[in-house]
C-alpha cells in the first residue's frame, strides 16, 4: 500500500472537517494523519491528509472529495517534489544524571528542549515523519511519558506547478 500526501483546499465553514473526515470513513479510505489550518487566502483552509492505498483508491479519494461542495481544490502533493514536516513534543524521563546523554541526542537531531521538569524533559522535534520516528526510537530507552505528534503538513517545492 502506497502512502499519499494530499492537500485539500476547503471553504472555512462550520462542519467542513466533518464532511471530509466522514467521507473517508464511510467509503473506507484510510486517514493516517490530518492537519487543518489557515491557507494563504482568507476564508479558505488547507487540510493536509496522509492516506494509503493504490492508485485507484487515490483517484477515487480525489474524485469523491471534489464532490463535496466546500472542497475547492485537491492536490496530490506526493506525486511531485514536496516538503512534508511534522512536529512532535516528547516528554521523556530524565533524572539529572541522564540529562547530558539526552541533550546529546537532542542536539544531534537539531531538536530542542522546550521544558524542564524535576524528572523530565520536553523535547520538540520538527522534521519529516522518518526523522521523528527515529527520534522517538532513540528516546524510548529513557522512558517516554507522553508523546504528541501533529501529523504532516506539506507544500510542494517552489518549482512545481499547481
Amino acid at each position, binding site marked *: 500500500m502506497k502512502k499519499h500526501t494530499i492537500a485539500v483546499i476547503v471553504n472555512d465553514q462550520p462542519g467542513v472537517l466533518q464532511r471530509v473526515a466522514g467521507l473517508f470513513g464511510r467509503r473506507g479510505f484510510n486517514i493516517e494523519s490530518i492537519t487543518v489550518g489557515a491557507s494563504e487566502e482568507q476564508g479558505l483552509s488547507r487540510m493536509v491528509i496522509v492516506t494509503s492505498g493504490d492508485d485507484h483508491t487515490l483517484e477515487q479519494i480525489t474524485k469523491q472529495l471534489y*464532490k463535496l461542495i466546500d472542497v475547492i481544490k485537491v492536490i496530490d502533493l506526493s506525486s511531485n517534489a514536496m516538503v512534508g514536516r511534522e512536529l512532535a513534543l516528547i516528554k521523556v524521563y530524565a533524572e539529572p544524571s541522564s540529562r547530558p546523554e539526552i541533550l546529546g541526542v537532542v542536539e544531534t537531531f537539531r531538536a530542542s528542549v522546550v521544558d524542564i521538569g524535576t524528572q523530565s524533559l520536553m523535547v520538540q522535534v520538527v522534521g519529516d515523519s522518518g526523522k521523528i520516528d527515529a527520534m522517538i526510537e532513540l528516546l524510548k530507552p529513557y522512558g517516554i511519558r507522553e508523546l504528541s505528534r501533529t501529523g504532516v503538513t506539506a507544500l510542494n517545492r517552489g518549482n512545481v506547478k499547481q
Partner: protein
Amino acid sequence: MTTESATLKSKEELLKKLSKPEVISGSEILLRSLLLEGVDCVFGYPGGAVLYIYDAMHGNTDFNHILTRHEQGAIHAADGYARASGKVGVCIATSGPGATNLVTGIATAYMDSVPLVVITGNVMSTLIGTDAFQEADITGITMPITKHSYLVRNVEDLARTIHEAFHIANTGRKGPVLIDIPKDVSAQQTLFQPVTGVNIRGYNPTINPNKLQVDKMIKAISEAERPLILAGGGVVYSGAHEELLEFVTKTEIPITTTLLGLGGFPSGNELWLGMPGMHGTYTANTSIQNSDLLINIGARFDDRVTGKLSGFAPLAKIIHIDIDPAEIGKNVPTDIPIVGDVKTVLGLANKTAVRADKADEWRAKLKASKAQYPFRYKDSDTELKPQWVVEMIHESTGGDAIVTTDVGQHQMWAAQYYPFNKPRSWVTSGGLGTMGFGFPSAIGAQMAEPDRTVVSINGDGGMQMCAQELAICAINNIPVKVVILNNQVLGMVRQWQELIHGNRYSYIDLAGSPDFVKLAEAYGVKGFRASNKEDAKAVWEEALRHPGPAVVEFIVRKDENVFPMVAQGSTIDQMIMGDAE
C-alpha cells in the same frame, strides 16, 4: 383535481410582487425565494420549530401545500414530484423527529440522484447544542446522504442559501440539499433583496465533454463487431431521450436500459433488449457478457446490474459517459471515459455518429435471441398471476401511465411487464430500495402531472409502510390508482429464502394485514378487490373510470417468483430461468 389552495397568479404579476426589496421575516423570505425558484407545490408537516414558516403560509394562495400524514410521506411525495416533472421537489418538516422522519426519503433521493430541497426547522440558535426539546443535528445526520446541506445562522444569508440549494440540487449530478433553519432565524426581520445569479466557488459541473474522447468513441464504434449500449437514469435526468434515440438510430447499436433508465428509450424499438441485471432479460445479460464494446450512458454499474464484478463484460472495451467523474472507474475499469452531461455528449456525438457496420451478424443474433427469450410466466385460468395483472394495467393505460412502485417482487414484475414509451413515466426506488416509497411518490407524481394517469403498484408489505397518505388523496381528490398485489407474504424475501436459504421461511408471513378495501373506504377512498381474471378486468376498468383515487387489491398466490434471476455473486449470464421455460 382540486387542492387546498389553487388559484395560481400569473407569473409576471407574482415576480413583480416578489422581487420588491422589503423588510420581511425569514419565513417570508423563504416563501418568496421558493416562489422565485418557480415552486408550485410543497409537501410538508408543521411543528414547533416551523411555526413562523407555517404562519407566513397562512392563507397562502401562491402555491399548493400538501399536508401529509407523516414526514416520510412528504419527502417521498416530493421525490415522486421531482422524478415525474424534472423540477426540484420541495418538502418542509419541523426539527427533531420531523427532520429525522425525512432521513429515509433523503437517502432514497440521494441514491437515485433526485433533485430535492429539504427544509427543516431547528430549535432557536441559542439552544442548539443543549439537547433542547425536539433538537436533532439534522445536518450532521444527513451529511452522508445529501449532496450538500446548510445550517442557516443569519437571516441575511437565507435568500442566497435557498437559491444556492436549488442550483446545487438541480445541476451536475442531481441530488437532495437540506436547509436547516433555526426558529429565531425564521422569525427575524431583515431587508429582503432578490438574489441575482448564483456563483459557488469550486462548484462547476462539467457539462461539455472533451471532444477528443467523443471522437475516440465514434472510432471505437466503427471498429466494433459486438457493440452494446447500456443506458441508465442519467438519460432521463438530463432529458436526453431524443438524442439517445437519434444516436441509436444512426449507429444501430442494440441497447439495454437499467431499472432507472426505463422510459429513456422507447421499448417498442427493435434494437431495445430490455432491462439487464439481476432480474433482467436473458438477451440483455448475455449480450453484455459477449459484447466487445460496451457504451455506458448515464448508468453507474450498480451491483444489481453487474452481478459478479470480476466476471462482468469480460470481452468488452468500456466507454463510460457520466456527469459525475467519480462514477467513472469506480466499479468497472474504463477504457474511454467521457465526463459530461449526457444530452450534450450525445448531441455532439450525433454530429459524427455513423452506423456500426461490422455488427450485422451481432444484430441478427440479438434480434433472434430477443424473440426467443422474452419474459415468461406460467399463466393460469383459475387464479390471478401478478405478471398478468401488470400486463392488464399496461394494456388498459396504453403504456402511457406514470407508474410508481414500491420495492420487491411487484417492482420487478412492473419493470418487466410494463414497457414504457416515454421518459418520466417510471418512478421507483432503485438504489436504496425503499419500501413505503411507492404510494406517496405517486401522490407527488400526480401533483406534478395532473392530466396523466398515475398508477402506483405496491405489495401488501410496502403498502402498509405509508398507507396513512390515503387521507391526502381523499381530502385533495388526488386521483391516484393504487394497486396492491396482495400475496400475503414479503414476496422477495420469501423468494430468496426459498431459492438461497433452502425453503426456510423466516418471518415473512403478513397474516394480520388489514382488509385493504375497508382500509381505503375508512379514508373515504374507493376500494376494489379481485381474485380472478374476469373480476380483475371489471374492477380495474371501474377504478380507471372513477374520477377520484382508488385502491384496487388483486389477490395473487404466495409462491410466485421473479424470473430470470441472477443469484448474488454470480455473473449475469448465469440466470435461473424459472418454470415457464
